[in-house]
């Protein structure tokens, strides 16, 4: 479904990603692991169209989307749930969800999608009219994921969904991710939490200083001694 070839991207002319290739098949959960500053967020920002690549190619269903704007990528179903959740704090849960489905592809189905995500996250239904800024961290993460689903995600990219959450919420969020996977959604999971990612992801990539150093099935990555070192940034 998604292929990245030799992607070089960064900020202000300084490459953070130095030739990354990666593929995600339809219906897969792919884990993207790596230490801080390995380039994980840069990679998904390049996929979202927020970072313009210096070279390389991004293909979605075989079509080149490298030059498309962020808006055009959202319309095609490449959706990012950003690190830190970035909900709109002064708006209600409802308004956040409506904004999730504001792109031209998703807008006609907003009402049905809204029902779907509220059934998926009953807590959000309870908090429907509450300002997003007053939600707990776990609830904000639910909202951020729900907002991403509202956009009509085909590829859902979750950036550090477990960050700053209590263990109970982390467990809950990962169960939701599993359910979404069960429903056929393709997921790219960017995580610091090694154990959880290896448990839920089918395949994993390990990024180290802008390069993919390990790739393969979760079990193989788990037993690879290089994983630990890349992960610890040693």
């Amino acid at each position: 479904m998604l292929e990245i070839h030799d992607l070089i991207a960064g900020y202000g002319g300084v490459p953070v990603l130095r030739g990354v290739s990666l593929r995600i098949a339809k219906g897969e959960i792919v884990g993207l692991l790596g230490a801080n500053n390995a380039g994980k967020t840069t990679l998904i920002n390049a996929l979202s169209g927020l970072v313009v690549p210096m070279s390389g190619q991004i293909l979605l269903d075989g079509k080149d989307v490298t030059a498309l704007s962020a808006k055009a990528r959202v319309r095609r179903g490449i959706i990012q749930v950003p690190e830190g959740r970035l909900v709109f704090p002064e708006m209600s849960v409802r308004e956040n969800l409506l904004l999730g489905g504001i792109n031209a592809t998703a807008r006609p189905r907003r009402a049905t999608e809204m029902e779907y995500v509220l059934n998926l996250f009953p807590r959000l239904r309870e908090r429907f009219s509450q300002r997003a800024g007053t939600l707990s961290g776990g609830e904000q993460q639910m909202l951020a994921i729900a907002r991403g689903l509202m956009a009509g995600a085909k590829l859902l990219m979750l950036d550090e969904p477990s960050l700053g959450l209590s263990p109970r919420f982390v467990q809950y969020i990962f169960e939701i991710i599993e359910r979404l996977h069960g429903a056929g959604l393709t997921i790219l999971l960017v995580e610091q939490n090694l154990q959880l990612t290896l448990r839920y992801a089918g395949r994993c990539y390990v990024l180290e200083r802008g390069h993919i150093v390990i790739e393969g099935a979760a079990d193989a990555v788990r037993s690879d001694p290089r994983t630990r070192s890349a992960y610890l940034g040693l």
Partner: protein
Amino acid sequence: MDELLQALVEGLLIGSTYGLVALGMGLVYGVSGVVNFAHGDFILLGMYVCLALYSAFALDPYVSLIVTLPVMTLVGALVYRFLIRPIADQHLLMVVQLTLGLALVIQNGVLMLFGGQPQRTPSIVEAKLFVVGDVVLRGPQVIAAVISFALAGVLFVILRSTDIGRSIRAVHQNARAAALMGIDVGQVQTITFAMGIGIVAVAAALLSPGASIQPSDGLRYTVTTLLVIVLGGMTDFAGIMLGGLIIGCAEALGTVYLSETLGTLLPYAIFVLIMLFRPRGLSWGTG
């Protein structure tokens, strides 16, 4: 006592228009961080276009809106898209410089075309008076207040319950998250700037009937608008409207109770006093 009441009511009426104009400026600031120092000169430009349309076709300022509203909204969109946006990522002072330059261009352009002597655009409602008890109000003042409050209300509803309004608030609250929703941030900024100048076009028509204008008046409007949005907490809707009313009253009271020149200083004095005790301005909320 009657004098006080008269001044207060007049101040509230004119203040509603100041509030409306400042709402436009505050929206622009909220979504793009741009403070437009030519905002008042655009009001003046609108007023001179009303004057020109009156001289050429005997159009009443209110009727001129059919022309000035769409044209100025379009000009606003073009100014943002082709002048401000290309340098919006640069240092803040670059944009300040640019809008100040724009103010001078408008001011001198008007001076060149219309000359420097004070002029006025008449209107059929000018002589109409409303008498409420001991207070006598001029027609244009009442119309300006009614339309300003109505437009502020429309703006409020747009911001709260339409997709474009929610997009504007989304860009204000978190531009990166808005981009991830597929919102074209640059487009929202352009639309907001155009709306701000469209509001200015309406304000120009409301302030025109019977008012004496000269090319240097733009700066006064800009400064008044700045006072209002700073007082109102930059992006707080209710705070800005309230700020407009306060500045309007201060101006009216100053003109009645102090000399003409000293009177225009009263809004600044009140502004400084309020900011001393409430540095965040009149806003209660956080955003």
